[in-house]
């Protein structure tokens, strides 16, 4: 055992003089950094600030007596995530153990941070997600049914969350819901743009190309701000909530990127597929919907999932149109003089959550890629 470890160390860290020198510098530095951080996190930091402002971080100024709506959304999101996972990843024993521990840990952490009641709700939601994962996998559920279920979930979240008004949505919940809604909205629009760009009809092709290239050459924040300003000008009599305007801006912007992904997918479909479909007298519509798009989208699913991460990270920009996303909620808490000394605690927490969610999305994208590579052809 020790000899093995020594051999590993020798081969990987001290194989050449330069490696050895580098290792001698970097390892102590890393060790010191880890020690310093651990000392701060475990001894000096005052984590109560996170627990005390948990509600604001998670939901912003969402009314406290309406929080069951937020919990409904959390549970639905967990179930949706689990169901999506069930389509591609087998719930094996190792994974189950990790997830079971994760569920328990989530519950305990939330219970400690806020109260036991919330801890139970959090653990329950996570467990629901696991149930959906196993359920979808064992029933070998039809993809189409699961996908419709996911759509229904999003609609349900909107319906349940909206009664107190869109203005009060905030925190991590806002970031997540915005990300999901925008990801879904960009799909049909992006697909149409990609098809438009390949169309034989010149006007369609020119408009699609111009749209895509324009959106890809300007910054996201500009588009979001611009849509936010222009909607009231176009429809002076109706007041469209800022959240919806923001979502429209995000969707219009990211649709151009989706279109480019889809276009690369379309180009990956072999010409023989189109010839076979044509020789069966299929119309252009059937050819695209039943033959070309399913194959093209399969190729680009990992990129599209990866783009969800771009949208999620981009969602930190909604503060410019007056929305309180997760990052903004953290800053609001720090604006309270009572929390003025807690900057590091809040930012470390924000960092950890962004890293966890980003990591999960990246992982899902990798798994999907591997799964799809195995599944086709």
């Amino acid at each position, binding site marked *: 055992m020790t000899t093995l470890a020594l051999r590993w160390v020798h081969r990987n860290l001290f194989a050449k003089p330069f490696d050895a020198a580098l290792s001698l510098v970097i390892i102590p530095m890393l060790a010191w950094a880890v020690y310093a951080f651990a000392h701060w996190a475990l001894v000096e930091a005052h984590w109560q600030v996170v627990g005390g402002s948990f509600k604001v971080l998670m939901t912003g100024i969402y009314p406290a007596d309406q929080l069951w709506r937020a919990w409904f959304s959390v549970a639905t999101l967990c179930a949706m995530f689990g169901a999506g996972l069930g389509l591609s990843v087998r719930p094996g024993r190792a994974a189950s153990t990790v997830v079971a521990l994760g569920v328990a840990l989530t519950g305990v952490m939330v219970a400690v941070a806020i109260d036991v009641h919330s801890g139970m709700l959090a653990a329950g939601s996570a467990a629901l997600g696991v149930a959906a994962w196993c359920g979808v996998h064992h029933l070998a559920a039809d993809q189409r049914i699961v996908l419709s279920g996911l759509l229904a979930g999003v609609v349900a979240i909107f319906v349940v969350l909206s009664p107190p008004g869109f203005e009060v949505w905030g925190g991590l919940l806002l970031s997540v819901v915005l990300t999901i809604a925008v990801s879904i909205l960009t799909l049909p629009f992006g697909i149409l743009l990609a098809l438009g760009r390949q169309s034989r009809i010149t006007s369609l092709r020119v408009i699609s190309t111009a749209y895509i290239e324009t959106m890809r050459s300007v910054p996201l924040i500009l588009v979001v701000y611009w849509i936010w300003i222009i909607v009231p000008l176009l429809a002076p009599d109706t007041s469209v909530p800022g959240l919806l305007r923001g979502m429209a801006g995000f969707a219009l912007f990211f649709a151009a990127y989706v279109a480019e992904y889809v276009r690369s997918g379309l180009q990956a479909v072999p010409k*023989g597929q189109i*010839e076979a479909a*044509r020789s*069966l007298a299929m*119309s252009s519509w059937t050819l695209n919907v039943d033959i070309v798009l399913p194959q093209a989208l399969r190729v680009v699913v990992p990129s599209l999932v990866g783009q969800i991460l771009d949208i999620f990270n981009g969602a930190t920009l909604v503060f410019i149109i007056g929305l309180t996303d997760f990052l903004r909620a953290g800053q609001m808490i720090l604006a309270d003089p009572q929390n003025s000394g807690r900057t590091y605690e809040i930012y470390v927490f924000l960092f950890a959550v962004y890293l966890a969610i980003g990591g999960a999305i990246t992982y899902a994208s990798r798994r999907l890629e591997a799964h799809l590579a195995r599944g*086709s052809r």
Partner: protein
Amino acid sequence: MNAIQIPAAATSREIIVSIISLNKSFGAFHVLKDVDLDVGRGEVVVIIGASGSGKSTLIRCVNGLEMYQSGRLTVDGFSMPTEADRAIGGERELARIRKGVGMVFQQFNLFPHMSAIDNVAIAPIRVRGRKPDEARANALRLLDRVGLRDHAHKLPSQLSGGQQQRVAIARSLAMEPHIMLFDEPTSALDPEMVGEVLDVMRELAREGMTMMIVTHEMGFAREVADRVVYIDHGRILETGTPAEIFDRPTHERTRTFLSRVLRH
């Protein structure tokens, strides 16, 4: 010009494909030169010729996968829209022709995201408006006919080349075509799988299906063809019964070609 034509009318058959002085170029490259060919109902026409002589291009014109510049091409009584017609939307006419013409490709071109049975059922459902249950029941019958009933729910990637090509034949048959086009259907197959595909085609010929077949399987051609057409550099040099072409070819070039392919 000096092509020897046996008009299908002489064998008192109804003409189903009529090709009159067809010319086709890819840019400056003249691929098909004044091609005349009639195919009668129930007739099996085998097209042979060296690689690059224009065999694929010719049969791809018959279902409109390639456009031609001049000449006349009618299929099932419908005239094939020319390049100019298509620019102003001859798509509907084209679809009407294609409904009656099945095509089997060298590379199978099965839809990789669908099971065998869905590959066969999709066109009847989407193009002919059949009910999904009926279309799938019929698809299963067709798969049974090509000996693949037990493989109906497999994806193409789970099937051997020979099996995939038989699914492709079933897929074409599902549209109830009046004529079937085969473009080197066995050229991409391992030798041990050629037989199973040829068996299915033989069976089709026996049932009276009209077929245009591009192939290098000369034994098969001799056995099933009513007529053999030899193409050389985009021109039909010689047509005749298998006996005439294989045993008494009149052209020196035909003789050279045959001696080359028959030697092995």
